Structures are given as C-alpha cells and as structure tokens.
C-alpha cells in the first residue's frame, strides 16, 4: 500500500472542513466516540445538526473563533492507499502555513466555491502549489448544489482556471465538480451531474500516479550521523547514517564525498536486520565505504559521475515567515539537508505579488508571508540541485540567530 500526502487549500467558507470531514466520514475513519463528542459539542452550541467541519477544527482558541488557524494533519486509509492530509487555512495572513503544509505534499487540493468562481485566493494557492512544485493539482469546484449542478457554470470556472494555470508552472491538473455537503463526486459518483465523466475525488486520490514524483536518477546521500560502535567486535566499523535524498546507491558503486572530493566505493549498505544490495529514496540506511575517509554530519555522498552544483552564491525563491521583516544584508543561519552555514541576504531581486504574479523589482521590504527572489551568500559552499529537480537538495530554511526561529523557506533556482 502506498502513502499519498496531500494538502488542501481554499478561502474561508469554501467548504474545506466539510470536504475533509466527508472524506474521513465516508471512508469510515471517524470513530463513534469522536462522533459522540462532536454531537455533544454541536448540541451545546445549538447547531441542531452534527457539523462535520468541526472534526477538523483543532485547538480551543480556534474553535472559539470558529476558524482554522494552523496546519493540522489528518489521516485516513482506504483499502487502496493511506492518506495524510495537511490541512492549511486560507486567510491572507497565513501564506506561511500553506507553504509549510505543501512542502511535503505530492498533491494539492484547491477548492473553489461554484457561486464565486475564481477569487484572489485561488491565484495565491495555485501560485504556492506551483512554487512548491507539487506534482499533482486537483481543483474541486464545490457547492455545485447551490448553482443547480450547472455544467456551464463548471466549464466557465475550468476555462478561467486554465488561463490562470498557463501563467504558472503547473504540470498535472484535474477539475472535479462536487458538493462536499451532500457528497456528490467526493466518494460516490453524483447522480445530479450526469454530464461529468471524470473521476470522483476519492478515485483520483486512490489512483494518481506517484512513483514518478521521486527523483531516482541523481544519487544524493546527506550524512546525518556517524555510527561508531564502542564494542571490540566492531572496532573498525564506521557507518554513515542518513536518508537517501534521491537516486539509487548499490554496493560497489563508485562514490564521491563532498566537500572533500575524496572517492571510494560502497562496501555495504546496512540496516538493522539485513545488509542490502541497494538503497533508494526515501530509505533510511547506513552506508559503509571501502576507504577510510574523514566524513562527518553535513557531508554528502554522491555518485562519482553525477555530482550536484556547488556554490556559495545561491539564487532562490523565498517565502518569509518571520514576525520581523527580512533585514537587508541580514545574517541568518541557513539549513540545507543536514548542513548548516551562516549566510547573508545580498540582494532582493524582486518581490512577487501572489495574486497578480506581478514582479516588483523596486520593493525591498520583505515582511511575513511575502514571496520574493533573493541572492543569498553562504559562508561555506552548499551542494545543491535546483528545487524543480530535487525537493530535498534544492530546499533550505533560514534561522534567526537571535531568536532561533525558522524565519524563511527557500527554493533554490
């Protein structure tokens, strides 16, 4: 059984919580005691009916405000797949949560209210999905029941969206007309929209092709931890523990260690109960080399004939998360795979308006939720691939040295 991680986005009241509640409910992932608690809460608040949306509203403060304000993770499974939902809120001030929720997703689900059509937030969500290089996009046109299940209305929105998508780097997009409230085309095929021949949402989630989402070409192994047992029988054992970021490594492969540039061959690939002939992303393994090379956390083992780029000057798209604005020429700590380096933001190339996609080259003030392109200079060379090619070796976070907070996410060009 495969694992599909997806994120959801929509403006407030588009029906996101109702839709997730329905997916959980129709896949029988809601337990009786959860339903009981929900019913009790709904009654106490005088709602009359059980509100499925409450299932996904986590913290008390949020419940009191009646809105979702952070990323929440939900789990459900069908006989075909296991699913992890990163549920992210749609308000303007929470771009950072959507970027966060999307960063590990294979698929992004964007909701549009059929009555309102494409709104500013649709632009923003689509932009972020494209920026985070999410492989699959599903646009659910919700509340079809409120527009009389009208095919023309649906087509109008699809056409409008295609215009929007043409301005972005979006690979694979599917449109589905649904009613989250009534369940049309969510798990069961709608009898109200015989004009629609495409998949239901659940069918799509269960069948979308995933294996091509992982980079199996460029061998990259960031070293996380060096294993040196303190027992006599393992006296000479030096294992490099890590998670394969991409590509495939086999015993006997010629490899290069960065930054030293020393080469060696793979002696063994160990996991607890077996030694393996090969390993691939995203497995966690321990690699042993045939030569004694000084390797520590932050180094990267790569295939000798396929090495990443190396530079102290990185061009990247950046989403700012910090409460305090980006400091021009500010110094931060950059985390890239298992490596850290001090860095300075040398230049803000432009700030992008996530609603109109307009690039503003004059704008040098970068505040929370802004997205911009920057030039970052690091103290030591970073070994990277472009984010489009490799999500793991192409992504960084910035940490504020004073507060230790994560203040930005970067995607290397």
């Amino acid at each position, binding site marked *: 059984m495969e694992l599909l991680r997806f994120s959801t986005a929509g403006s407030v009241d588009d029906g996101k919580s109702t839709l997730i509640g329905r997916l959980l409910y129709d896949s029988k992932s809601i*337990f009786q005691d959860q339903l009981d608690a929900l019913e009790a809460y709904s009654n106490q608040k005088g709602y009359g009916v059980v509100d499925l949306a409450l299932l996904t509203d*986590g913290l008390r403060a949020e419940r009191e405000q009646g809105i979702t304000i952070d990323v*929440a993770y939900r789990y459900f499974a069908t006989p075909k797949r296991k699913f992890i939902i990163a549920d992210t809120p749609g308000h303007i001030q929470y771009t950072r949560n959507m970027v966060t929720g999307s960063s590990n997703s294979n698929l992004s689900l964007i909701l549009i209210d059929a009555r309102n059509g494409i709104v500013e937030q649709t632009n923003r969500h689509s932009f972020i999905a494209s920026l985070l290089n999410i492989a699959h996009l599903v646009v659910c046109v919700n509340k079809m029941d409120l527009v009389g299940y009208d095919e023309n209305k649906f087509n109008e929105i699809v056409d409008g969206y295609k215009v929007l998508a043409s301005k972005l780097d979006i690979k694979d997009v599917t449109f589905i007309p649904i009613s989250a409230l009534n369940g049309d085309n969510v798990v069961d095929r709608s009898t109200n929209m015989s004009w629609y021949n495409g998949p239901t949402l659940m069918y799509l989630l269960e069948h979308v092709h995933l294996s091509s989402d992982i980079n199996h070409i460029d061998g990259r192994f960031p070293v*996380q931890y060096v294993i040196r047992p*303190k027992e006599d029988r393992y006296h000479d054992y030096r*294992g490099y523990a890590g998670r394969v970021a991409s590509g495939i490594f086999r015993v006997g492969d010629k490899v290069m260690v960065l930054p030293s540039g020393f080469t060696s061959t793979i002696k063994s690939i160990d996991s*607890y109960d077996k030694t393996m002939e090969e390993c*691939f992303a995203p497995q966690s393994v321990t690699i042993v080399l045939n030569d004694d090379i000084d390797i520590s956390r932050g180094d990267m083992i790569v295939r000798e004939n396929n090495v990443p780029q190396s530079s102290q000057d990185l061009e990247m798209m950046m989403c700012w998360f910090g409460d305090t604005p980006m400091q021009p020429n500010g110094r931060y700590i950059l985390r890239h795979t298992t490596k850290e380096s001090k860095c300075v933001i040398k230049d803000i190339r432009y700030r992008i308006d996530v609603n109109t996609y307009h690039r503003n080259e004059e704008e040098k003030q970068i505040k929370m939720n802004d997205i911009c392109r920057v030039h970052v200079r690091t103290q030591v060379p970073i070994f990277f691939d472009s984010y489009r090619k490799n999500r793991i070796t192409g992504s960084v976070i910035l940490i504020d040295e004073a507060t230790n907070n994560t203040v930005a996410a970067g995607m290397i060009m």
Partner: protein
Amino acid sequence: MQLYNLDHLRDLEAESIYIIRETAAQFERPALLFSGGKDSIVMSHMARKAFYPAKIPFPCVHIDTGHNFPETIEYRDMWMKEIGANLIVGHVQDSIDTGRVKEEKGPNASRNALQTVTLLDTIAANKFDACMGGARRDEEKARAKERIFSHRDEFGQWDPKNQRPELWMLLNGKKSVGENFRVFPISNWTEMDVWMYIVAENIPIPSIYFSHQREVIDRDGMMLATSDFIIPGPNEMPRKEIVRYRTVGDMTCTGAVFSTASTLQEVIDEISASRTTERGTRSDDKRSEAAMEDRKKAGYF
C-alpha cells in the same frame, strides 16, 4: 519503476528513523520517553534500528506513577534488556514524598496529572534537552497540529499559537539555554500503522494487550480492574470478565474492553471492526474536551 516504491509502513519507518537520528545529532542530551505502551515500544524498536550496530546513544525514561499494571513493569525491564538501552525511572511517589505534588483524594483519584511534575523534574535533573515521545497526530485533535520538533519554553510550556514552521524535513532544534524540545518521531503513524508494524517486525508487546480474565468493576462508563488502587465502592460489584486493553496507562484510569482477541491478528481484526478510538478508553481525556490541550500546555508529553 514499481521496484523503487516504498510500502507505506517502510515509508513511515524511514521517516521516523530519520527523525530519531536528527534528534541524536542536533541535541546534546536527548532521551526517549518510554511508557511501556505500543507506541513507545515501536519508537524504541526503531531507535535500535537507527544506530545499529552501535547501541542507542541516549537513555529511555519511564515516569512510573506507581499505579502501573505489574505486567507493564515486567515488560519494560525485559524490553530494555532486549534493545540494550539504559533506563532511567522517575517516580511520582518521590514527587509526592518530597511534597512537590499533592495526591488527589477520592475514588477517582488519578496520578496522571501528577506525572507532569515528575517528568519535568526528571528532565531538569538529567538536563535532557530533547525528549522523544510516542504521540501520534491521529490520536486527538490537539495533537494534529503539533510539530515533529516541538519547542518548549524554559517552563516546559507549549505555545500552540507560536510554533515554528516545519518544512520538508528540515527540523530546527535550535534553542536557548534552559529551553528544551519534545520530539515526536511517529507523528504521522495511525493506530493501525503501529499494529501492522508490530506484526511485520515481530515485536513483543505487554500481555495486557491480549485477551485475559480479570476482575473488574464499572465506573464512569469504563471497566476498571480492581487492584490496590481501585477499591470497589458499596454499589460496585466486582465481577470476572474476558477483557484486554487498547492502551497501556495507569490502572486507575485505563479501561478494559471486552475481547477474546488473543493474537496480534485477532487484535488487528478487532480494531478494524471497532468504532471507538483508543483514547476513548482512558478517562483522563474524557474529563474535558480540551483536556489534552491543557495538559500539553502544562508540559505533559
């Protein structure tokens, strides 16, 4: 390319081992909180895998309320030997004896809330800067938003409104003096994943997870085992039932369920068919709907 797809359990395992290794690499004095329940068993099993053939480079910590099932303690000692881990035990009784906490009175007295103090004291005494816990996001609403590296201020408090963004798998464990972290390596597992993994890896678990005969009483909609800590009241008639437990908690607040499931497969079949979440068998969560959130704010696991 079918060959290079990971099954979902292996995918989750790879992620958890990555998190455990990150914790060992980023912190000076990490520890693994071991409750004796299946979640912390699975976590410690993966800790052993993560550093093999070296030993687990951090201790396991058990907060003993003194109201544990004897089976849990017996299992704990066996398992620690099996995985070759160092065990540190914090006793709630010590916190009571030294006046750090006051024991609840009455028939529903539970030491569950007191654990928080003992835990925080144990963390302070050992200067732990990161404690791994076996909590899962699917367990309970408040946990659905918890980060994998969850920052605690110098008072051990969690601030749900001010969590660090966590992107890709770039975990930020930086902290100031006196602060520490809770780390949740199996955040993304569900109850069913844990069970399936226990089967796949053939991991031993405490006997109370399997069907057995036990003397119980009914209290607060739960079946509680009679023991030195649960004394039947005048209207509570002890009786023998065939039961098992879905979670390993305190004897004072963990309810048994009717069950004849005596093998792992039978347990899994029972859970697949069941309509109650596992936390539903623990009274400490039922006390209030936002109970978990309150306790987490106060530094509970």
